[in-house]
């Protein structure tokens, strides 16, 4: 799920010459009861209140307890992001919201499949770059490859940009999964 970043949200009640806080990107981890509609509640909160979603992933993480973990990458001023966390906490089936970016040391990974089309030198060039990025070939025809690449979102962005002039066809990304470093859990 990719949303375009709209301009900084300014309340009409704030003055135009007021200080505008810096726009930051944060990764939030939301532990929820895996019940019907819970994702709609989370997504609806973002659309209803005009918050941005850069990326959103969700999957069950503890089958026995029926818990799912939603990872959301969002942008906004620090005040907006604090609001987002508190608003998420109000959703009844939400257990916990952690702003991983505030915690500092986190690892973020995303998986992408990238389809590239090309002949002759462009094929070798694509393969050479893929090797440098440790992307795997998971499908090949005489005129195309599909690469599988795992990494931080930035690394995937970079790889996609390199493939673009070679013959990028399409990209499918999972969105970000994230976790804190060290022995302690969420």
């Amino acid at each position, binding site marked *: 799920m990719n949303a375009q970043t709209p301009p900084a949200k300014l*309340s009409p*009640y704030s*003055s135009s010459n*007021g200080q505008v806080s810096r726009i930051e990107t944060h990764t939030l981890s939301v532990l929820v009861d895996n019940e019907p509609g819970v994702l709609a509640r989370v997504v609806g909160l973002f659309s209803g209140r005009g918050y941005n979603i850069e990326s959103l992933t969700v999957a069950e993480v503890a089958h026995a307890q029926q818990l799912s973990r939603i990872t959301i990458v969002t942008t906004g001023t620090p005040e907006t992001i604090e609001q987002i966390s508190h608003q998420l*906490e*109000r959703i*009844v*089936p939400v*257990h916990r919201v952690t702003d991983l970016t505030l915690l500092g040391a986190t690892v973020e990974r995303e998986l992408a499949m990238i389809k590239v089309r090309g002949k002759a030198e462009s094929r070798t060039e694509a393969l050479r770059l893929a090797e440098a990025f440790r992307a795997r070939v998971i499908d090949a025809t005489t005129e195309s490859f599909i690469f599988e690449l795992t990494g931080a979102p930035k690394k995937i962005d970079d790889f996609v940009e390199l493939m673009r002039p070679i013959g990028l066809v399409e990209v499918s990304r999972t969105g970000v999964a994230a976790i804190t470093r060290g022995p302690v859990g969420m």
Partner: protein
Amino acid sequence: MSKMMTGAEMVVQALQDQGVTTLFGYPGGAVLPIYDALFHQKKVHHILVRHEQGAAHAAEGYARSSGKVGCLLVTSGPGATNAITGLTDALMDSIPLVCITGQVPTHLIGSDAFQEADTVGLTRHCTKHNYLVRKIEDLSRILHEAFYIARSGRPGPVVVDIPKDVQFATGLYTPPKNVHHKTYQPQLKGEIAKIKQAVAMMAKAKKPIFYTGGGVINAGPAASTLLRELVALTGFPITSTLMGLGAYPGSGKNWLGMLGMHGSYEANNAMHDCDLMVCIGARFDDRITGRLDAFAPHSQKIHIDIDASSINKNVAVDLPIVGDCAHVLEDMVRLWRAEAHPVDKKALQAWWAQIDQWRARKSFGYKKSDTTIKPQYAVERLYELTKKRNTYITTEVGQHQMWAAQHYRFEEPNRWMTSGGLGTMGYGLPAAIGTQLAHPDALVIDIAGEASILMCIQELSTAVQFHCPVKIFILNNEYMGMVRQWQELLHGGRYSSSYSEALPDFVKLAEAYGMKGIRCSDPSQLDEAILEMIDSPQAVIFDCVVDKAENCLPMIPSGKAHNEMILPDADEDIGSVIDDKGKMLV
């Protein structure tokens, strides 16, 4: 006791076990089993409304005036969609409701079946939480959970959508236990260290003010008692939002009147100039803050609120305290007493002297008239003639609502039912019926506008059927006065569609419903007519014919600061006050 029963029986059993005695509702195909279960018992009294919006507002009035959870039952599809305005209203004003909706049988969900609507989808944004009950095994737990969620923490509406096959299915009913909800556990106690810090800040303040709101009412009568104690101990001035009126008595000596867009000059100036703002259960709504960058620019702010998302939402505060008003106030009073804080007496005296100067402007003043009834005068007289009685006031939305807030004085909490956040015309009459049912012996008055009252007028029939002697006091200015005022302010006096054309004859209308109708247009006869209304054992419509052109002042024009109010005695042409940026705002 755990017992086998049908889903429909479980609903009624759960209502009884939750102490519900009054249920507002309207039947339909998808709730017939529940209506059948209601038929066999006497504990839950069903009040048949005439429109589901009325059920929701009646439940709101019932809840707000009694502190209990309000309850309604509506059918699928149009029943549920009709209730949505009331649910949204309850969400905005933090009113605890449980709304049970019928749904098409589970196997038909998603097939565009007759009277199917995606009720949980539609109400997701206007409820605190909602449920679709897919199997009978979940039903009793969900019903009890719904009550727990509606009333705990920041109260709000909860919808339980029950497919018809689940109502017919048989299962084991489990009574309510002390639910320990696995995720929802609001924090009641405030952090003591922070409360200590707050008390220390208060002791040092030179120009302090209490800014209180609906949260104090939500926290129960004990919170109001503690608030009064704290005000008495500190000697600080106190103002409140529209939603918090009555928590501190309107006759209290530290009372500055309501603040905000139509608040008093003294309250707004004191907010603007204060050096310490103690916000208790209020949410820095835009009707309060006006222009944000000019909001109380020299102040430190303490904010007590049970909902962490209310804090720092519109206004950044220096000391946030998450907790229930009653709990936090209790600790505050205790700590203040224990540490016997010496306040800065001299500074406080100077502050009060300043406030008295603002008070002397008499910003709720208006030009008296011998020939036409001024709406403010009508509310004043209504207040004088009812203040010694056991009175509850509801309102519709518009100028009359603001005049009621300005000129009626509330001595106790839970006596004032109004739609603040959503501003729903049509709220007042059903809310009055709900209030009357919670307080059968009280005098319940809906201060109404002639336009608003028509929005839920069908509920007159409910009032008559259930012997609710509510008094509908219409300030009839033949205009959607609030709209007319804004058109005068912003749109060059072009009164586009704001004249109340083709009004019914309200006296005859009352009579048609089997009520009493009274009309008065002469100020010299007003008292007598009001007394006639009060003394009538029946429901009454009082058509109070008032000045058509009166504006509701004072007013902070949109986009302006607290100290830029338009006062009633201003010479300015009010059409020239708001700039283009202000016009964008609502």
